[in-house]
């Protein structure tokens, strides 16, 4: 397989050229994840990392970047796809060019693991199941719940819905009040939640926000409606960014499931193994924690990196 002298970038001497097809600015989680990778693959560590974020989260621009890395002949490609599907042709071409590809975070669909070296990611399904499991235990009598989603059709949204529903959907005590997109945004989540509370005469016990930002928006809407978050309405979020843990510590959020972004080291090891011709597992799951109490949040906060 491809050695370190793949003819890439030219002037960088014996640095290993890594093409990073990234997502770019999306939210705090992505920020932490990509910064972590950029900080890991440094020149000191022997790498020349080419960072190529998508424009407007558009898959087309990622494919363009990917193709360009293949044409240029980088040594290895890290692919952090915005969308899981539609990558076959590109990956096949990378294979033909003997450039190993490592998937970061998002997997591909259909999951043909012969097309890439490995996938390193936390598991969305597992993380969202953990939210649902917590809910089941927190509301033994069941609850009226509402889901704040990301944009309809994005695969994270689909996966987080699927994981969540696989548990909650089984439990008849939970009554869905519906789901609405708030486009990952605090403001929109606040606005949506306000209306949801109005429409249901404040009879909402549980909100599942698919990211921290929306969860924080929900907190504000609940407060604005004169209710107490954490008491009248319990809110659970996914990601585990610092503001969310602070809110958890303050009792505003009730549950935060981490979706661990810090796996640059793991990626580095995988890249080294692959370039040396070694074998790696086709899926390296990054362990993620959950925080279900203010105390847990307090403990984690001091060395929270994102």
């Amino acid at each position, binding site marked *: 397989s491809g050695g370190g002298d793949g003819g890439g970038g030219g002037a960088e001497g014996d640095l290993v050229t890594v093409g990073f097809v990234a997502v770019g*600015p999306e939210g705090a989680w992505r920020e932490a994840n990509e910064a972590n990778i950029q900080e890991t693959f440094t020149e000191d560590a022997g790498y020349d990392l080419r960072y190529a974020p998508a424009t407007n989260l558009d898959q087309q621009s990622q494919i363009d970047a990917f193709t360009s890395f293949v044409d240029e002949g980088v040594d290895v490609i890290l692919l952090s796809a915005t969308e899981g599907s539609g990558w076959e042709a590109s990956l096949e071409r990378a294979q033909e060019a003997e450039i190993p590809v490592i998937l970061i975070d998002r997997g591909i669909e259909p999951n043909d693991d012969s097309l890439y070296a490995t996938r390193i990611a936390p598991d969305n399904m597992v993380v969202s199941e953990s939210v649902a499991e917590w809910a089941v235990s927190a509301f033994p009598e069941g609850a009226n719940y509402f889901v704040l989603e990301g944009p*309809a059709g994005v695969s994270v949204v689909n996966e987080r819905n699927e994981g969540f529903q696989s548990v909650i959907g089984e439990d008849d005590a939970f009554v869905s009040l*519906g789901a609405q997109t708030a486009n990952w945004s605090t403001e929109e989540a*606040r606005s*949506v939640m306000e209306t949801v509370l*109005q429409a249901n005469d404040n009879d909402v016990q549980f909100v599942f926000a698919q990211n921290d*930002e929306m969860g924080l928006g929900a907190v504000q809407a609940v407060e604005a409606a*004169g209710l107490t978050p954490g008491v009248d309405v319990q809110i659970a979020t996914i990601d585990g960014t610092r503001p969310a843990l602070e809110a958890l510590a303050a009792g505003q959020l009730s549950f935060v499931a981490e979706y661990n972004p810090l796996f640059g080291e793991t990626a580095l090891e995988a890249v080294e193994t692959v370039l040396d011709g070694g074998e790696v597992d086709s899926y390296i799951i990054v362990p993620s924690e959950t925080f279900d109490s203010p105390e847990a949040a307090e403990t984690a906060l001091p060395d929270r990196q994102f």
Partner: protein
Amino acid sequence: MTATTTRERLGALASTPLVWGLVAIVVLLAINSLRDPGYLGVELAESGRLTGNPIDILRTAAPLLMIALGMTLVVATGGIDLSVGSAMVIGGAVSMEMLQAGDGSVGSAMAALGMALLITAVLGAINGLLVAFVGLQPFITTLVTMLAGRGLAKVITEGQNTSASNEAFRWIANGTVLGAPVVFLIALAILVIVVVLVRTTALGMLIESIGIDPKASRMAGIDRRSLLVAVYVISGVLGGVAGVFATGSVMTVDVSNTGLLLELDAILAVVVGGTALTGGRFSLAGAAIGALLIATLDKTVVFLGVSSAATPAFKAVVIVALCLLQSATIRERLSRVRLRAPRREVTA
């Protein structure tokens, strides 16, 4: 010569786009009230502030109303400002950063607001200078500043979603005075200020003039360039104000999402309000109603529980229905004159 008949008066009324915006708002509110008769109710919550759907609608409409006003002026000159969403996020980013660094006092709130306005004014000025003096097309100019502006916001917050706390600020964004949300009152105040600025001076007429016919306006001795710069600066500043209050409501700036695609909503509001995108005659009140309509529509979608997937289609249906009602074809039914001249839509 002719006495105005009821029919003519009806026709004139029907040809005021503003009226149809109002009708649409009423219809949407009625639909919501059908679902829940208490929809329009406003209550005094324990916390001592008023809550209720109408209040929420007004608060949601406020930032949109502000940018729609600036957009109206820009559109009237025959231009377009795609960068207002970015002006919002810049305004939000600057104010949140300043507040975070500040001491939570009213003074630091003022400083944050001032700084946000200053920077967004500069952004607007850049647009204006490029359009007026370099002669770039407004669409492409503001597309560039839209892209670069959001980037700038990210640079300002170093990519973080900065939060801050400042009571004065929070009150402005969330508080109510006599039942009405403060933000909305501010938006109304801005509406009044802009209307006064534009209509008690000659600004409005001159803007319309350059929008209708730049060449003839130049020959009439109008200094088109400084007017253009002024209008884009106004739009930028209003974008900044809107951004400050939009982020103020949650006290967090979301650099990727604040103001995203809001320029489209603003343009929609402007057009619903009866200002043609080809420039010329404009109606600020119309734009305000347009903004209210869009806020109502957004709220209705959630209230009725329309699924995320179907939301855009639902909006489309409402917009199309409204456009058809405003269309000349319907209007012709109501008024007697049937002109088959190549016509331009003109607003009163």
